[in-house]
């Protein structure tokens, strides 16, 4: 059986995670799109921490006989991996878009320079 203290700490930690994520979204420092996986993480950990019988049952299914809270760590690790993987795909997309923006600006600047001297940033050689 999961020790009560582990359960309490687990509930407190997942509640804290959920509140921090919500506050970040409210303050516009995190977009809803990227908050959803974190919220799912918080909610799953909250349920598993609070519902001790459920955690025991899950541990039984997974063959974890000695210490059921180990399943909490496993689930938390799994979700962190998911979030990281998700971020890797996001970063890849941002990288491509960033390169495209830089290329377009280079082409635009070239076109503007040919059209005439800009009042803004004179360059040597112009």
């Amino acid at each position, binding site marked *: 059986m999961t020790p009560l203290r582990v359960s309490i700490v687990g509930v407190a930690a997942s509640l804290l995670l959920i509140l921090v994520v919500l506050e970040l979204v*409210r303050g516009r420092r995190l*977009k*809803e799109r990227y*908050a*959803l996986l974190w919220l799912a993480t918080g909610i799953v950990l909250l349920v598993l921490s609070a519902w001790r019988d459920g955690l025991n049952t899950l541990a039984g299914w997974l063959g974890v006989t000695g210490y059921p809270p180990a399943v909490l760590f496993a689930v938390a690790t799994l979700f962190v991996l998911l979030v990281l993987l998700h971020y890797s795909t996001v970063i890849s997309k941002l990288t*491509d*878009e960033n390169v*495209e923006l830089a290329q*377009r600006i280079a082409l635009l600047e070239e076109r503007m320079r040919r059209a005439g001297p800009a009042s803004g940033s004179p360059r040597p050689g112009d």
Partner: protein
Amino acid sequence: MSRGGLVAIVPAWNEAAVIGVVVDEIRSVRSDIEVVVVDDASQDDTAEIAEGRGATVLRLPFNVGIGGAVQTGFRYALEQGYEQAVRLDGDGQHDASQIPGILKPIEDGTADLVIGSRFVDPGGSYRPPFARRMGIRVFARLVSLLGGQRVTDTTSGFVALDSAGIELFAAEYPHDYPEVEATLIALRSGLRLAQVQVEMRERTTGTSSITFLRSLYYIVKVTLALLVASMRRYPRLQGARQ
């Protein structure tokens, strides 16, 4: 140029088959209307066709999604000093001949944002599939509750705005699945909202971008956005009279 004029903002993504007709129809409603097509990185000839029909075309360098595309149009309207704007989808589902109708409360000065709603009139002909109808209704209830005013159709993309509305949405507009949250933001910013019955056409080409997994993301994202938006403080807009 065109201070006080009217601009039509038309987000489009791969709509080459219909965008020409859409631009023509809008231009035939009023001769003084500038049609701005925001091309969300289409792979087909959407931008060229729209330009050929006399529209101003803003070409996004890559796909930014419907909300980001529409906001580009609002920013253009703000920069150009437009005082009235209508927003229509590029797929032809919004009937341009109804523009004068949804513009009326703006011209009368009685509203800052007018939603072309499919459900003001209970006898309206729009009958979406059950799940969709429920979704639209639940979001309408939620926005009405959080925004303090009854809203019948929060998922409509057929809207008209005055300068206060343009200013708000140029500064603040959700990037994906924007309509529901934008309605709440408008209410919480003190914009005066009006609703006018419109009929929408069935899509003639393409498919709706809403699939099952996306529907799930849509529901969860929009719900979260609404709850968070109702916890935020929004500055009351200068332009909004009330």
